[in-house]
């Protein structure tokens, strides 16, 4: 199989800025306080992902998950090390990027799709599917600002999942959709995964990671703490003692909703 993502000794140094004015900086310096501080958000992270793998990226808050995703998306550049990806990336990290509240849903679909790298012809071809998936009907011709938060999330999700991508990155998932739409999204994500797209899924929900992924990477303070089997990974994080056997379907949907 082909390598899809290659992460090689990636480290990222962040500066903690205390947002001081010049005067405050001088005072702080005279008092011997720190003016600047740094910390490693990612510390020598290395792993390879094969095409078609479904990775669950887990870890406590502040462990560097979002930073790692931003590096894989290509938004950020590592301080040292290298990242290489193969093919086109899309993902829910960018849902609603570039949405303008005063523009119609239709116009925003085209804008968002262009940001995700789609051409006009591609968007034209996918438009019926996108609008059908979003289930917004003729509200697509009204300004997005009038949508409920659930509706605009649906619109963003609909665009993101219809990009013909090779790597799909899911971060902020389904916080506001209603139950039927959540179920539909889960189904769509499974469909994407089953079509051979490399899936990168960030979640705190053990249940949905178990369902979606076949490998877990756990980040701990910017380092890879665990990389391997899903169940072992969840055990490693002590996430396995939660809600053993409630109605699977329902609790999973609830879990998906409680993410971020």
């Amino acid at each position, binding site marked *: 199989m082909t390598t899809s993502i290659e992460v090689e000794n990636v480290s990222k140094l962040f500066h903690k800025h205390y947002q001081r004015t010049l005067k405050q900086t001088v005072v702080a310096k005279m008092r011997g306080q720190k003016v600047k501080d740094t910390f490693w958000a990612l510390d020598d992270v290395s792993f390879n992902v094969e095409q078609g793998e479904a990775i669950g990226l887990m870890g406590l808050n502040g462990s560097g998950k979002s930073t790692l995703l931003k590096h894989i*998306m*290509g938004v950020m550049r590592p301080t040292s090390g290298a990242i290489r990806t193969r*093919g086109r990336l899309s993902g829910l990290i960018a849902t609603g990027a570039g949405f303008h509240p005063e523009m119609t849903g239709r116009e925003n679909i*085209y804008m968002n799709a262009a940001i995700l790298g789609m051409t006009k012809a591609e968007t034209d071809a996918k438009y019926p599917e996108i609008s059908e998936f979003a289930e917004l009907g003729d509200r697509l011709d009204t300004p997005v600002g009038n949508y409920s938060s659930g509706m605009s999330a649906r619109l963003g999700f609909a665009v993101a999942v219809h990009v013909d991508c090779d790597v799909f990155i899911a971060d902020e998932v389904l916080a506001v959709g209603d139950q039927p739409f959540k179920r539909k999204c889960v189904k769509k994500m499974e469909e994407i995964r089953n079509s051979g*797209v490399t899936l990168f899924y960030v979640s705190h929900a053990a249940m949905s990671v178990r369902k979606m992924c076949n490998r877990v990477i756990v980040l701990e303070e910017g380092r890879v703490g665990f990389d391997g*089997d899903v169940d072992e990974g969840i055990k490693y994080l002590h996430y396995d003692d939660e809600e053993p056997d409630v109605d699977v379907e329902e609790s999973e949907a609830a879990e998906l909703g409680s993410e971020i």
Partner: protein
Amino acid sequence: MTDQLTPDSGVAGEASVALRHDLDHVPLVDPTAKGGLVGVLRRRYLLSLMVKRELRARYIGSKMGLAWSYINPLSRFLTFYFVFGIILGRGQIPHFAIHLFAGMVVVNLFTESFTSGTRSIMQNKSIVQKMPLPREIFPIASMLVSLYHVGPQLVILAGACLVTGTFSPDLAGVFAMVMAFVIVILLGSAMGLMFSAINVMYRDWTRLVQILTNMLPFTVPMMYPFTLVDHRFRNFPLIEHFYLFNPVTEAVLLMQRMFWITTIPPTDKGKPEWGFQPGLTVNFPPHLFVRGLIFIGVSMLFLAFAQWVFTRLDDRIPDRLI
């Protein structure tokens, strides 16, 4: 630590995977965007959408729509005509409203590209933080939006020239106008580009940009004739050189070469007490066109410098956006 595929997971068989995502021929690449102004050219479709979005958003919900982009400059011109032509002018400088408005077109283009470009990355931070784009696209889109508004202003300006009844444009004038726009477009893009990145690091720059753009209209010969500057600094050639070493001044003079001086017949003697005389040699500095070409070169170099500054700061932009 790779290849930990669990066999019982719900992943489809490798056959279908290989079928749809046959990526062996696709190289592994750095996922960050190919930056630079060249990278922006590669995303022309997105750029055009961004410009359209900005223009649509500006006039959305108003019944007059894009007609406002004509009404605004027209009202400004009529105000100039009233104040400078009727109240203050008393005819000393013929068609002073045109003199002023011709300069205003390029000065506005410059200051708008500069200020909106400076804010552009901060304004679009939700996109910048989520997707890899050549980030130069934001200040360039701002410049294009400002450029769009030049069209209506030129229509008003040409209309005013025709109303004078003595408008006789020449080819050299058209050439001058083109040079003026090339200078201002290059310079406005360069300033917008450079300060959009700097502004992410230190918000103080927005304030400084504001001060600069407030001062600019007074440092170019549009609210007063160039002859006055020439007269005042006749014995201090260094100061005059310094005054003229401003690309926007050059652009203003080139615009007046196209629109203003061509509305004054060479026989018009004006009012002697102000000392106005018609003619190119009196009202413009020598070597106007050569200077124009030199400033185009200078502006190009400055744009290259701005791109260099931008590239140096580019990697830190997503880290610094909060």
